[in-house]
């Protein structure tokens, strides 16, 4: 019984390790089906959602708003799933999507670039040069999108509780390390962490409901009380704010909504400095 978030670099055996770790801990493995569910929620084809999470930003590419919409729905689907029971999940940027849950073990599956390129070439039977190129490109996009969408350095090991170098371990051994770590008392579920997860799930549900109206809205929740922070300010957008409030109130489990307008002076001032 464990809650594990697996993040696998391109060319690492992420799915295999996740399935094995799930088997070892008696949890359930979830992966691509979350993306399908999120795409349904967002009203987009799965391919588009996949693109939103894997293509580099470009002028004619997918807009930031669409990407945020995809993420919000993925987040809602994911945390909703976590509430149902012990889960091992492997979704793009999963470690950014779920934060502050003490019983969630975050694992990064890592291997040096050459090793990953090799296994990529084997798995997809393509040329070595092509594999190196593809792996490099995926690493680049991953770092870029993490900075853009989460303002985070995706290579920062502090994001994880455990980093496993898969080039030295086979899938079973890697899964064993993960499973053993996850079953340590440190990662046991507590009332507090359960409460955090419930709050997060509700906040994410609300966010998914609002993201079409305001893709930058920040949602936090505490015991059914939801707090919205929106940059939609000014007298002219009063109707839009009312709409945000109404949409939030209609979400299941919401007992109250507070709306806060953020006129973020500091970031406005310091933006040119950064």
């Amino acid at each position, binding site marked *: 019984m464990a809650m594990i978030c697996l993040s696998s670099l391109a060319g690492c055996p992420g799915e295999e390790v996740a399935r094995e770790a799930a088997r070892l801990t008696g949890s359930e493995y979830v992966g691509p089906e979350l993306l399908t569910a999120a795409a349904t929620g967002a009203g987009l084809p799965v391919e588009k959602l996949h693109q939103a999470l894997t293509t580099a930003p470009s002028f004619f590419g997918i807009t930031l708003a669409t990407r945020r919409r995809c993420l919000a729905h993925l987040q809602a689907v994911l945390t909703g799933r976590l509430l149902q029971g012990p889960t091992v999940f492997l979704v793009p940027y999963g470690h950014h999507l779920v934060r502050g849950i003490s019983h969630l073990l975050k694992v990064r599956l890592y291997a040096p670039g050459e090793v990953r390129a090799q296994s990529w070439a084997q798995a997809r039977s393509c040329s070595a040069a092509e594999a190196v190129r593809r792996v490099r490109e995926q690493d680049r996009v991953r770092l870029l999108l993490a900075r853009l969408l989460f303002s985070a350095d995706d290579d920062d090991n502090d994001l994880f509780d455990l980093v496993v170098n898969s080039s030295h371990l086979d899938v079973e051994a890697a899964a064993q390390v993960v499973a053993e770590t996850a079953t340590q008392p440190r990662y046991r579920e507590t009332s507090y962490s359960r409460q955090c997860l419930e709050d997060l799930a509700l906040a994410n549900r609300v966010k998914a409901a609002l993201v079409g109206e305001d893709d930058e809205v920040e949602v936090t929740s505490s015991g059914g009380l939801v707090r919205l922070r929106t940059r939609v300010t000014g007298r002219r957008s009063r109707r839009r704010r009312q709409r945000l409030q109404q949409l939030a109130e209609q979400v299941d489990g919401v007992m109250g909504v507070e709306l806060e307008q953020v006129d973020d*002076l*500091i970031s406005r001032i*310091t933006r040119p400095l950064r």
Partner: protein
Amino acid sequence: MTPAKRQGDTTPPAKPAPSFGDALAQEIFAGRDLSQPDPVDQALLQRPTISFRLRLILAFSLFFLLALGITLWSIRVLGTVQQKILFLEVADDFKLELQQARRFEKNFLLYGSNLEDALEHVQQAHRLARENRQTFLQVMGAEGVITLEEHLQQYAQLLSTLARDRSAREQQQVREHGGALLVAAQGLVEGERRLVHEMLGLARRVPFVFLLVLFVLGVLLVWFLGRQVLATLSRFMGYTERIAVGDFSPITPARKYRDEFSTLALALNRMTRELDRHHRILVESHKLRAMGNLVAGVAHELNNPLNNIMLTASLFKDDFPELDDDEKLDMLADIIGQSERARQIVRNLLDFARESETQLEPLAVKKILEETVQLVGNQLRVKKIKLEMNIPDELPAVHGDRQLLQQVFMNLILNAVDVLPERGRIVISSDTGKREGFLAIDINDNGPGIPEHILGQIFDPFFTTKPKGQGTGLGLSVSRGIVRKLGGYLFVESELGRGATFSVLLPITSVPATVGAGGS
């Protein structure tokens, strides 16, 4: 042994505590309506214009007029001299005629010949005198001319009588008149020659005098204009120094008239207004940052009273039928008491967060420090930092703004908390003897101290030793800005490995009696 380093202000500000902070929020968000002139600017503008250009033009005109005067005078003098020279020629002729007449007169008396020649010469002289009567009149005056003419007439008459009567008496008279005439003519020529010499001498001296006068005048003018420019320049240097120490009060008119420097003053005023606005935005945004830190702490702090309320109220509800009245009352009292406690926590935070106009008033520092320590209480507890406050109750009130001071103290305390290891110690003490008229608040920590090589930079904006993303590097810079605005100083003394002491020197208020008005 390394001596403790001292870093900080050394020059007192030009003026303490100017007023700032009118409708701050409005200014920050809306910006100033620049089409509406500032009252000070208007005062600067509503003065008669006496520009430096005008002053230069005036000085130049003066020089030109002087030179013109001198030239005209010289022309006149030269004209006169020319006339005099002409007259001298006439007078010489006149004299010559008379001399000839006398010579012929002598011949006649000796040899009895040439009397007609003498007469002709006398008549010639008479004609000269008549022709140049005007000039003669100018030179000799009416009386002189009349006597001269009388002499001439009599001499001529005597000469004609001499032809008939060559008596000794007649001869004597002719000689007398002739001599007198000659003397008069001689005197005339001599006088005129002397005059011409005098005038020429004057014409030689005047240019030197004029040059001297011109030189003195030039020196005076340069000194006068220079003094005006230099005095204004040094006045403006004073302004810039004042601005540099954070005094953003506008420049007020110092003279009764306007000149090119008034435009500069207007520009400086516009600049200081902008600086002031940015400074305020900086202070405000920094306060928001500090608040962000506090809110997290305070939110946790609130959990205790909230928990007490939640427990009590839940049990009140669940056990309602079984509780007796005393128990119920006790529980309600607890709920009210804990709500009050929560309110106090929130109020402290809100007091700090409130955007308000700057109000300079006599303040009791101890109370402000206590409130600040309450606000940062959680941060202290998290790191188990012991905070000692050695502040006597009886302290002179200081001049300042409650919120701004709180911001400064909070900043210094939180900085200390950041550098301290767990179970570190902060001591806050006061000292009235550091500088006359100032109360010093020392915030001392026993942390690692500040290395000498960065001691000089810690007050610079954007200087930070904290990891990226954790500090703005504005805290100390903003704090110093605030303290200077309040007419005080902010120092740091530090010894590596022995901690650091930040000293806030605040001007003691001269208004007596209102100590304790620190609140509200």
